[in-house]
């Protein structure tokens, strides 16, 4: 049994020391969230509380999955952390600094790739856009585009348009684009919820491979418990609406993980059962 409880159910998470600190980067958690809350409809008779009180830390290079019942405020939480929505309460620290809007060190992959990719640009221009606005030279842009496309297992589609690709391929392009400017931290909001099961398994291995090779920190929101346990170093379980952290589950499964062997192992099944009970109990 590899299950360790790193948190009390009241939502306070004990900070884990960073396991794989890379090079000259500062130590300590890359992302610290303290008593974060988000209300909608402030000023109305009954404002809706989307996120109640979330406290968590994400260590450098860690793969954190967030699961919870639908409507638990997972997406709202991610949007607050990625700087796309202003939280109502609490604070979000990125490398110890309070975030102000969308950060240069952060990448976001959205669920709906067809809405996130720009259909008027070729795949190459989609991926090069964040480089172009950072003043990267044309030749260097082309090189990065080629690199990230092969990283997501999609070489040679530079001149295609996103809508000429299948759903799974489009999401690979979106992932490649979010990696182009080498963010430290990658937020993924139910990224695989809109693709079919086969493509989903492939995409899970794509992001696992990227996490291993680049050492990028991943904050991955999903409603799929199997997916969360398969991918994560730690699974944070949110309670139902409004969101508080119910429990954080350490996943000690060894890497690289394998769709068949890992998902069939007794440890995996035990972890999945535990997370499922936590989610269903919410």
């Amino acid at each position, binding site marked *: 049994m590899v299950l360790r409880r790193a948190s009390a159910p009241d939502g306070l998470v004990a900070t884990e020391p960073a396991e794989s600190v890379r090079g000259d980067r500062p130590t300590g958690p890359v992302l610290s969230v303290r008593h974060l809350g988000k209300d909608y409809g402030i000023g109305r008779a009954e404002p809706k509380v989307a996120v109640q009180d979330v406290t968590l830390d994400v260590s450098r290079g860690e793969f954190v999955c967030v699961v919870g019942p639908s409507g638990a405020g997972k997406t709202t939480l991610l*949007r607050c952390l*990625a*700087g*796309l929505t202003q939280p109502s309460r609490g604070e979000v620290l990125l490398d110890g600094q309070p975030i102000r*809007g*969308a950060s*240069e060190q*952060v*990448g*976001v992959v*959205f669920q*709906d790739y*067809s*809405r*996130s990719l*720009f*259909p*008027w*640009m070729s795949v190459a221009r989609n991926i090069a*856009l*964040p480089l172009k*606005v*950072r003043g990267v030279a044309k030749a260097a842009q082309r090189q990065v585009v080629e690199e990230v496309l092969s990283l997501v297992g999609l070489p040679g589609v530079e001149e295609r*348009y996103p*809508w*000429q*690709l*299948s*759903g799974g391929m489009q999401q690979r392009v979106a992932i490649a*684009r*979010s990696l182009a*400017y080498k963010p430290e931290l990658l937020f993924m909001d139910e990224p695989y919820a809109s693709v079919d099961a086969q493509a989903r398994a492939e995409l899970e291995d794509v992001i696992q491979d990227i996490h291993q090779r680049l050492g990028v920190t991943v904050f991955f929101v999903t409603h799929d418990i199997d997916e969360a346990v398969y991918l994560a170093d730690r699974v944070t379980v949110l309670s139902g609406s409004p969101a508080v952290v119910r429990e954080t589950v350490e996943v000690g499964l060894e890497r690289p993980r394998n769709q068949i062997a890992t998902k069939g192992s007794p440890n995996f099944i035990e972890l999945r059962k535990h997370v499922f009970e936590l989610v269903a109990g919410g």
Partner: protein
Amino acid sequence: MAQPDLDAVYAGGASQTSRAPRRTRGPLRMAGQALVGLWLFAVLVGLWWLLTEHSTSPYFPPLSQIVSELWKVWVFHGIRVDLVPSLVHLVVGYALAGILGIAVGVLFWRVRVAKQSLSPIVYFLYVLPAPVLLPAFIVLFGIGSTMKIAIIAFASIWPVLFNTIDGMEGVDSVKLDTARSLGLSRGETLRSVVLPGASPQIAAGLRNSLQVAILLMVVSEMVASTSGIGYFILNAQQSFESVDMWTGIIVLGVVGSALNLIFVTVERGVLRWYYGERALQTV
């Protein structure tokens, strides 16, 4: 969304616009399509020709006579004297409307205050029917080219302006979030995301504006004017030259169709991505 057959899509490439990728797009097929589209038109013109052949009515002269007169009056003299000046007014006025319409739309998007304070004025001007402003424009600009260009621009700015505003407001929020997360500034977001995203609707507005511009080109020449195709038609009618009047109407129809054809061709090219994406979604 149904998953398209990828091989068929790749074969068609980016210029894929057909809704049924399996069919061929050879010249034979295109000729066939043209035939299907034009047969009724051809039949009606034929009927017109036959039924008026022995007409002695001063109002319905034989089409054969109209056609031969059309050749005499319009090719090359009429085109130079009456058509070209009208088209110059049209092109300049329409271009002004397009540029100003998009520019004001952009201003409204970027500067909230501008939208709030200018909207009432814009809507007040919009509800005024442009032809009734002709007297005022004559007072302001005289009866020359300036007045005609001004009234064409004034009347045709509204479709492109309102479509630009609407299209820019309607850009997908996920695309705007994406732009922010990729680190695009507001100017870059405007250039790379909002304007391209709104471009199909802006094009629809430009197309409506073209119709209005043609309308006002003719109307502006029917008041206090001594040249132009609108003047030619009105003058022919008033001096009982109904053959000439009909030639003017036919020329106007041909010119309008040609302008529309040019517009659609350019639009299909510029918005290739839009028609390509839409064709796939409806397969």
